[in-house]
């Protein structure tokens, strides 16, 4: 157990941004924080990195407590912050050399080469950072987090805003790091990313971990339930929904109404019959097997996307 987080809490005024969060991560694991914007993912990460002081609880990295003295873990961790910016008038190589020197390290030619090739930036070594594409900038941010050869790597939304191809390129780097025995904690609001990369994910909502497990297990938790989605001519009342023998999701503008039912045939039968009695028109009726997206929706009543 390389990371141990106990009762981690952060308050902003009266708001509980992070509410008694507990979890542990094994060495070599890719662990994901899944949640919508403002769920407390970044605050949680920043308390673990030593950037933000918790109001309660503790974080142990390799048995060392991050607080009250975050200086002790600085050489142990590598961090890519959300919304990455660099000095625009420095080149890729100069950025890497500069950040290595901030750790009082000198990058050997070999180290520089392997970092650049990991990020596919060999050709861009002498390019100013403001000439890089979004994907290249994010990959530079990731390899900048590696200059001190950290054991634990924090990646805060490493692929947000990237196109699918650039996103896959970043995933390759993250898998490569895992292959080297690094422990990786990342936040994302892309389900696909969590399902593809993470050994385990914690679903966080309003500062609380509402579920924590392997992505596949989380999906199985919904059981053999099927996902029934449909749109209705007017909103269905909760009393109505209770009679359907299904767990109800909430109305969302994109997909309409979502239900999870263990016996979809029976639920749909009741639904249509009731709707007819009430004079409600049901259309766009779909039955599908649930994904991590649906786990999230079922647990938080929210869509994960922006």
């Amino acid at each position: 157990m390389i990371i141990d987080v106990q009762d981690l809490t952060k308050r902003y005024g009266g708001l509980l941004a992070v509410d008694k969060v507990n979890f542990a991560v094994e060495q070599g694991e890719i662990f994901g924080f899944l949640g919508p914007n403002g769920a407390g993912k970044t605050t949680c990460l920043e308390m673990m990195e030593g950037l933000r002081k918790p109001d309660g609880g503790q974080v142990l990295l390799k048995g060392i407590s991050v607080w009250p003295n975050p200086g002790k873990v600085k050489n142990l961790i590598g961090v890519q912050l959300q919304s990455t910016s660099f000095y625009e008038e420095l080149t890729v190589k100069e950025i890497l050399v500069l950040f290595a020197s901030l750790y009082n390290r000198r990058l050997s030619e070999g180290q520089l080469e392997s970092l650049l090739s990991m990020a596919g930036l060999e050709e861009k070594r002498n390019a100013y950072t403001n000439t890089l594409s979004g994907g290249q900038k994010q990959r530079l941010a990731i390899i900048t987090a590696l200059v001190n050869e950290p054991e634990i790597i924090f990646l805060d939304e490493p692929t947000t805003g990237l196109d699918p191809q650039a996103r896959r390129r970043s995933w390759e780097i993250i898998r490569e790091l895992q292959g080297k025995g690094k422990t990786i904690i990342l936040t994302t609001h892309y389900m696909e990313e969590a399902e593809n990369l993470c050994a385990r994910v914690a679903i966080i909502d309003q500062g609380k971990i509402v579920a924590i497990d392997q992505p596949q297990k989380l999906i199985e938790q919904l059981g053999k339930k099927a996902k029934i989605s449909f749109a209705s001519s007017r909103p269905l009342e909760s009393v109505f929904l209770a009679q359907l023998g299904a767990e109800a999701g909430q109305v969302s503008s994109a997909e309409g109404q979502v239900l999870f039912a263990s016996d979809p045939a029976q639920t749909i039968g009741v639904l249509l019959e009731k709707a007819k009695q009430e004079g409600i028109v049901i259309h766009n009726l779909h039955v599908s097997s649930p994904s991590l997206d649906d786990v999230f929706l079922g647990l938080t009543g929210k869509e994960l996307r922006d």
Partner: protein
Amino acid sequence: MTFWTLLLANTRLQLRNRGSLFWHFAFPLVFMTLFGLIFGRGAGMLNIGLVTNDSVPAQHFQAAFNEIEGVKLIQGEENTLLEDLQDGQIHVLVVFAAAAAGQPVDVELFYDQNEMLATGTARSVVRGVLDGITRAVLEVPELFRLKETAISTEELTFMSFLLPGVIGMSIMFSALFGTAYPLVTEREKGILRRVKLTPVKTAVFLGAKAVGMTVIAFMQAAIIILTGISLFDVQILGSLFAAALVVLLGALMMVSLGLLLAGVAKRVESVDSIANAIAMPMMFLAGTFFEIDGAPDWLQSVALILPLTHLNSALREVLIRGQELAAVLPALLTMVAWALVFILAAAYLFKWESPKIQGNNRKVL
């Protein structure tokens, strides 16, 4: 090693940015050249128009003027010269009218009453010359024997006075903007938070910035001095070593003020307004371009406190008047005191994180 890499990076950032290159190096030279063109050359040169009738007194007049320094006599037709007077090309116009022998010569003098200073001087020069001719011709015995001695042996030319001021002003602007602007930008972009995650010491990180700006200050001083010597005949009397020490203290003082400014300014936009609000009045009050002897006493007392006043005066004494460092010790000590005040206040106010980032989180949550 960390320090040198940071210093190198900071220097690259300053020298690769066209905006900061202009403000550090081109701006002071443009300033000095413009001032040199406006005030430096031909200041005090009087242009006097003359319409002569080739009479003996007129020839005397012409001969007398050739002996006076700083006066240029321009001969021509009355109409043309009157136009020149109206255009401000000449300061006064003297017209000798044709006269019968034995009669007083009619001399008419035209001047522009809007240009009181220059025409006043020109008019008294003309009167003096005419009186002199009268006395010489009539052989009037001299009542007074006037002997003129300039008290200050190193009467400063305007450009000599200006040069140390331009150095002081450039160091002030560059250090204020060159320190505060990048720091606040780095804070807004989150680069400072990223740096805070590394084990680098705050003193090393900011120290590299301070030393980088001091290097820029030395480059500025060197360029301005070389331009002054080669283009404007400025005489450097003092020791360059002493001047370097003054530049060093001045740069550190202004960089400290820049660090303080970075702590005060919440956003990049406010760096501009705060820095200008500090620097502009200081530039004029600190004797950059002219002494402020004419100002009310209270304003002069204010000027005496200002950091730039001490930098300018120490530079002027050492560089142009050739004084020893000991002679400017009070100014040097005042600069050190200011630097300490600024550093302490800056250390108290310095933030790694932009209030926007915290505010953003609060809003989202």
